[in-house]
Every structure is written in structure tokens, then in C-alpha cells.
């Protein structure tokens, strides 16, 4: 199978997203698609699979002009799309999710649940995932849901599989497992379109790469003929130098100190300190309980025992409001469900945690809210038409910056960042790193949860590694390696690569 997209253009209202994109993929190859947040990668794939109509251009499949009526149609013709945003039915079981709209029926037209279960287990085990297929999918972590998505698409016997940032929520082992499967399928003649912001991956898995910028496809290379620098230059239109800026930390006194925090069955005896100006990374496998620890500290979830000290004083944080009063900020890992109010304007989103500060004579001073939002959007280089547009209309990376803006704006002294660069393009990543440095220079303490080991090593001062709800070690970043962190993350035994 060979797909060619020629001169595709697309506009949402007045926002011209694609202005002549060329892209082609064939059976048996992995073709990466790269570009900044909002470059139009997901849009292009949605056009290919018929979710959106295009405004111009041709799609040729094996030379024939083709247009699919919708995702199901595309799938039936051998094109499967693993979406960037997970499309799951949280209340439904794993097996029902996997077989939705393609259920196996018995001869009476009734659903054959046993057969579906068997098949689901089979495909999941191909990915090395041991998952109870009768569990509601919503009770599984994001990473596991991602694996299920992948299993689902393999199951359709697709000839071309589109993966839109499939690894954003996966850890190293799972990524390795995924790549093994991809290579396997490639040999069987399956073609892949692979979208990712993780540079290393592109060079590991892709045969070809196409870079998009400002609505057009800038360049297409064989992966072996190109280097990272070139790709980045194509994407951002300039040099950005190193991925990770130099850190020159100056630690002040201890701000936050957590002692023996325990919630039975979730995490146990968690103790750590963070100092002014420090970046403390939390590393670990997915599902290790890092997010849960932070949610408890921030007052979202309950904890059974343990103490939290701020500036040496014991504090009781009963809800996020009191956390914010103590000048703690929390960028959640799921910006859509927990970070943003998509229907509200950027301005209202950014001002929300600090809104009480804008009251004059009992009423909100709108002018200063506008100025405040504008200032932060400039500082964080949020790409948007104005502060009045809704958060839902921004691309993922820009949404992430908006969430960051609101916590920076609320004057946080301790900033918890849960996967701050997940799904963010290289350019924006670099901007976020610079911002982190700027904040620590102003004595802000940052706790960064990240599943991206190079990022952990590149941006932190200390690394706390979590294994099954316990901190298995806190190490200095200087001297730590991917291997040493992985060892701790898998419980200290040497099965990091099992």
C-alpha cells in the first residue's frame, strides 16, 4: 500500500493550518512526521482518515484518488489511527473498548464475549502487557491505556498504522517493547506514520522523516542522511543550541519538607526535602505512584499519615486552595481534565488561581486581569490570537504553556510539575526549561515528575526514584546515569531491561 498526500490545505475558520503539505508513506517503512506544536500534524492525519474534510489537495492510495468517509472507513481499508488524545470509554471494560464497533458476533447476532476476551488477551500479550481485560479501562494508568490503543490497532490487521505521539505516556521498557513490535510488523509489510516530539526515538525507529513548519512540509529526508540539529532547524526555523540549558543552581534554605507521608496501598513513608532554587526530579516507572504523592501533598487526595513542613513549620494542607495560599503550584499531568477549563478564555484560565488578588472594592478589576494575562502569555510565548480565545482552541504545547503561566502567575514558591513537557515540541521544551531555570534563579523550588530520563538527567539537581509507592533512593544528578536510575526504578534489582 502506498499513500500520497499532495498539496493538502486546511483552515479552521480564519486560521489557516495547512497550506500545501506533501507527505507519502509506503508499506514496510516507518515514516516520521515532525513539527512544532500546532504545526498541523494531527490535523493532516485526521484529514487522511476522513475525520476532517480538506480544503484542497489530493490523497492518492496506490495511485487512486481516494477519500474516506470517516475513521471506520479508513480502518476498514487498512489505515488505523492511534490518536494523540486517548479516545477511551472509561466506564467500559478493556475488551469492550478494544472491540467497540467491531464486536465479534455469534450466529444469533449476539455478542460473543468469550471470543473477544481471548483475542484481546492474545494481542495484549504480544505487547507484553498483562492486563485484566474485564476491568473498566478508566481504572488503568494513562500508559496502560496507551498500550491498549496500540494493541487495538494491531488487531485490525492494518496495512498502515498512524501513531500520534504513542510514547508520550510510556516508560523506557514499554517503548522498547513497542519498537520491537513495530519492527516486527514492518518486516511483515506494515507501514507506519510516526509522530513524536522525542528526537531520540526518530533516529531509533524511523526510516524517513518529514518536517512541517507553518503549514507546509519543509523537507523530507532519509533518517540516516540527517542529524538532530538539522531537524530542529527545520522545525523551529532557527538554531536552538543544546536541548538542555546549563543549570547553575544556588540552593537556599529548605522550603518544603515531607516526612513519612503514607496512604495505604498507594505510597508509603515518603520523605524528601526541596530547597529554594532546586529542581528535584521524581523518576520511576509508570504507575509507581509519583502523581499520587504529589496530589496528596497538594491537598487533592487524602493521606493516612505523615507530615508536611513549609519553611520549617508544620502545615496542614486540606485542599488546593490552602496549598495555593501556601504558595504551592501544581501543573497536573492531564492538562485537559485537570489543568484547563477548555471553554473559558486564556485570560480566565491564567487568572483563576490568583483571582482573589484582582478585587478592587469587591469587584474584579478586568483591566489588570487582562494585563496580567497578556504579560504572562508574552513571557511564556504562548501562540494565540489573543487572551480572549478559549483554551480549547490552542494546540497541545501551547495549552501546556498556559497551564504553566497560571502557576507562575500565582506566585508559587514551590512548583510541582507533573510531566511538564509531555507532548511538547523541542522549541517549546527548550522554552519551558529556560523558564524553569529562570524560576529557580528567583529561588523557586521545583519538583519535576518526568518519565523522560534524558530530561530528568538534563534538568534536575537531585533525583528521587519511586518504586511501588516507596522512594527507593534520592541521588545527585551529577554522577547519575540512565542505568543507575533505572536500577532504582525497578526495585534495585538488575532487571531494568527485562
Amino acid at each position, binding site marked *: 500500500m502506498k499513500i500520497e498526500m499532495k498539496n493538502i490545505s486546511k483552515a479552521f475558520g480564519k486560521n489557516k493550518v495547512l497550506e500545501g503539505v506533501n507527505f507519502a508513506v509506503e508499506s514496510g517503512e516507518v515514516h516520521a512526521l515532525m513539527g512544532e506544536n500546532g504545526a498541523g500534524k494531527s490535523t493532516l492525519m485526521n484529514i487522511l482518515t476522513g*475525520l476532517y474534510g480538506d480544503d484542497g489537495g489530493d490523497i492518492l492510495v496506490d495511485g487512486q484518488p481516494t477519500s474516506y468517509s*470517516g*475513521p*471506520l*472507513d479508513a*480502518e476498514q481499508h487498512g489505515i488505523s489511527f492511534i*490518536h494523540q488524545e486517548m*479516545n*477511551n*470509554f*472509561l*466506564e*467500559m471494560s478493556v475488551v*469492550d473498548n478494544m*472491540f*467497540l*464497533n467491531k*464486536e465479534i*458476533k455469534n450466529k444469533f*447476532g*449476539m*455478542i*460473543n*464475549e*468469550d471470543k473477544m476476551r481471548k483475542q484481546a488477551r492474545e494481542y495484549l500479550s504480544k505487547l507484553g502487557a498483562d492486563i485484566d481485560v*474485564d476491568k473498566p479501562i478508566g481504572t488503568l494508568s494513562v500508559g496502560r491505556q496507551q498500550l491498549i490503543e496500540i494493541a487495538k490497532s494491531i488487531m485490525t490487521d492494518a496495512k498502515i498504522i498512524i501513531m500520534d505521539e504513542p510514547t508520550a505516556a510510556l516508560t523506557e521498557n514499554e517503548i522498547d517493547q513497542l519498537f520491537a513490535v513495530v519492527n516486527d510488523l514492518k518486516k511483515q509489510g506494515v507501514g507506519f506514520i510516526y509522530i513524536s516530539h522525542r528526537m531520540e526515538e526518530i533516529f531509533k525507529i524511523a526510516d524517513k522523516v518529514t518536517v512541517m513548519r507553518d503549514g507546509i512540509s519543509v523537507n523530507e529526508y532519509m533518517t540516516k542522511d540527517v542529524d538532530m540539529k538539522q531537524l530542529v532547524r527545520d522545525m523551529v526555523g532557527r538554531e536552538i543550541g543544546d536541548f538542555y540549558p546549563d543549570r547553575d543552581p544556588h540552593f537556599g534554605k529548605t522550603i518544603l519538607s515531607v516526612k513519612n507521608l503514607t496512604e495505604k496501598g498507594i505510597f508509603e513513608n515518603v520523605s524528601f526535602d526541596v530547597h529554594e532554587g532546586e529542581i528535584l526530579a521524581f523518576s520511576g516507572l509508570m504507575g509507581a505512584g509519583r502523581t499520587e504523592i504529589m496530589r496528596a501533598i497538594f491537598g487533592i487526595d487524602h493521606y493516612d499519615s505523615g507530615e508536611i513542613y513549609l519553611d520549617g513549620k508544620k502545615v496542614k494542607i486540606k485542599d488546593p486552595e490552602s496549598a495555593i495560599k501556601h504558595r504551592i503550584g501544581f501543573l497536573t499531568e492531564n492538562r485537559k481534565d485537570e489543568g484547563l477549563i477548555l471553554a473559558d478564555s486564556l485570560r480566565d484560565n491564567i487568572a483563576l488561581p490568583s483571582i482573589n488578588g484582582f478585587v478592587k472594592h469587591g469587584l474584579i478589576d478586568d483591566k489588570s486581569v487582562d494585563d496580567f494575562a497578556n504579560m504572562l502569555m508574552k513571557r511564556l510565548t504562548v501562540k494565540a490570537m489573543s487572551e480572549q480565545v478559549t483554551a480549547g482552541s490552542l494546540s497541545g504545547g501551547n495549552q501546556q504553556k498556559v497551564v504553566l503561566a497560571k502557576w507562575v502567575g500565582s506566585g508559587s514558591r514551590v512548583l510541582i510539575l507533573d510531566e511538564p513537557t509531555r507532548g511538547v515540541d523541542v522549541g517549546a521544551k527548550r522554552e519551558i526549561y529556560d523558564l524553569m531555570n529562570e524560576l529557580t534563579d528567583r529561588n523557586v523550588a521545583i519538583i519535576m515528575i518526568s518519565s523522560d530520563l534524558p530530561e530528568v538527567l538534563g534538568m534536575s539537581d537531585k533525583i528521587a526514584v519511586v518504586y511501588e509507592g516507596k522512594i527507593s533512593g534520592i541521588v545527585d544528578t551529577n554522577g547519575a546515569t540512565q542505568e543507575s536510575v533505572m536500577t532504582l526504578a525497578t526495585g534495585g534489582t538488575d532487571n531494568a531491561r527485562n
Partner: protein
Amino acid sequence: MQETKSVETEKSKGFDFKKFVGKMGPLLALIVLVILVTVLSPGFIQPNNLLNLLRQVSINAVIAFGMTFVILTGGIDLSVGSILALTGAVTATLLTTGISPIIALLAGIALGSLLGFVNGLLIAYGKAAPFIATLATMTIFRGATYVFTNGNPITGAKMNDSFMFQFMGRGYLLGIPFPIFIMAVVYLVLYLLLHKTTFGRKTYALGGNENAAFIAGVKTKMVTIWIYTISGLMAAIAGIILTSRLSSAQPDAGTSYEMDAIAAVVLGGTSLAGGKGRIFGTLIGALIIGTLNNGMNLLGISSFYQQIVKGIVIIIAVLLDRKSNDK
């Protein structure tokens, strides 16, 4: 049936108590209620009264079965009471003309489906919120009923001549009132539809995440239209039972029945947010409401207090359900 068995075995292997209470909560509530009423008023448990109760429940239950689908998609259908009245009136009028009762019944059912279909169109293609769309059609269908009947109840000798029509609401089969059979058949059909067919899966999917359902290729608009059509159809069946039971079609029949149906669905553990629930629960919910009504009547509780008690029971049931669903 083999299907069901295998599910059972699998469940019993790893018995999950919390899940069991969560699922069986409404059933437990019903059992407690039945015991309570029986102790207070022994007449309750007599076979005659139980058959009465089931017949009384049948109308609400049939509507509530249809409403279960609607609520599973995250929607709501406020127009069922008006559909019941309009289809009842039309069926009755046809019968008074002396037409074959089969045709009259089919016409009523077809009309109910058509009215439900209109709701579905407004919601699927008009993108109107179900609450407001069916609030509007509730008013329209009720007005149409008044116009059609000129505000008078419809009765007539011919209507009462038809054995078949009378049988619907007042007949007995093997000593059991016929509406109970209708309820049972409707339950069985809708149970299979919801839990054993792809249509059922799509219903859940639509309620769980409409966008995702669309991306998975579910024809969300078609499913929506079908579901409101089913709800209209159920209201029509209920209308026929009621008209037959009363030997007359009242223009104000079914007023506020939507609330009882919704209460039955929610008492049965189906979430108003959609995507979660079972039709078995709705049956239990309808029985809880029926037992309450019947039991309080037997106990001679004044209707003023009956309302208060009913409201409180609904609240308690919903609160308990929330608790058992919490971790």
C-alpha cells in the same frame, strides 16, 4: 444463555464484594423495603396484592426501560408522558371508528416511534440539548393531544367491544395480569438489545464519550435517533396499556410520568451522566417505587406524607449508591 453462564463463572472466580454491593445495592434496598412493608402490613405479601403491584408497576417500568437507553447516552426524555397521552388518544379514537384493533395498536406504536424519532432528529441533527428539546416537544405533544381530543377523554362502545384491546391492560393469562407479560417481554428484548448486541455497546459508548465513539466509527447520530425512537415506542406501549386499563384515553394522561421513569432509572443505579448502568437496575428501581406507592397506600399514609417519604427514599438510595461506588 451459554454466554451468561461463562460470565457468571468468571465473576464467581474472583468474587468482588464491593462490586457486588455496588451492583446489588438497589436489589438489597428493594428487599429491605419489601420486608419492612410486609412486617407493617401483612396484606402486602399476598399473591393478589403482588400481582396488583406488578400490574401497577408495568406502565412505569416499560417507560423506564426505554428511558434507560436514553439516560445511558447521557440524554433525557421529558416527553414520554405526552407521547403516552397522544398515542393513547389516537389509538382510542381509531378504535372508536371500529377499525381492526391490530391496526389501531400498530398505528399507536408507529406514532409513538415517530414522535420519538422527531426527538432524536432534534437532538442528533439539531444539536439541541436533550433536556430542552424534549421539554419543548413535551409541551407540543401535550398541546397536540388537547387539540386532537378537544380536551375530552375518549371512550366509546366500540373501543370496549374489542376483546383484544381490552386484554392489553385488563386481561389475565394463567391468572397473571397481561400487562405483566408485556413488561416481561419488553424487558427481555431490551435486555438482549442492551447487553448482547452491538447496538447496546454503541449506546454505552455514546454515553461514555461521544467524540471517541464517533472516531471509532459509531454512527452517533443514527444511534441517538434510534434510542429516542425506542423511548417513544415504549411510551406508546405504556399508553396502550394505560388506555386499556382505564377504558378511556385521557388528554392529561401521563403527566409527570417522566419523573417517575427517571427516578426508576436512577434508583436502579444508572448514572445521569451516561455510560454507566444496567437495565436490570431499572426494573428494580421501578419495583422500589411501586412497592413504596403500594405499601404506603396499604399502610394508609396520607398522600402528603407519601410525597415526603418517596422523596426521602430516593435521596437515601442515591446517597447510598454514591457511597458504594466510591473507593
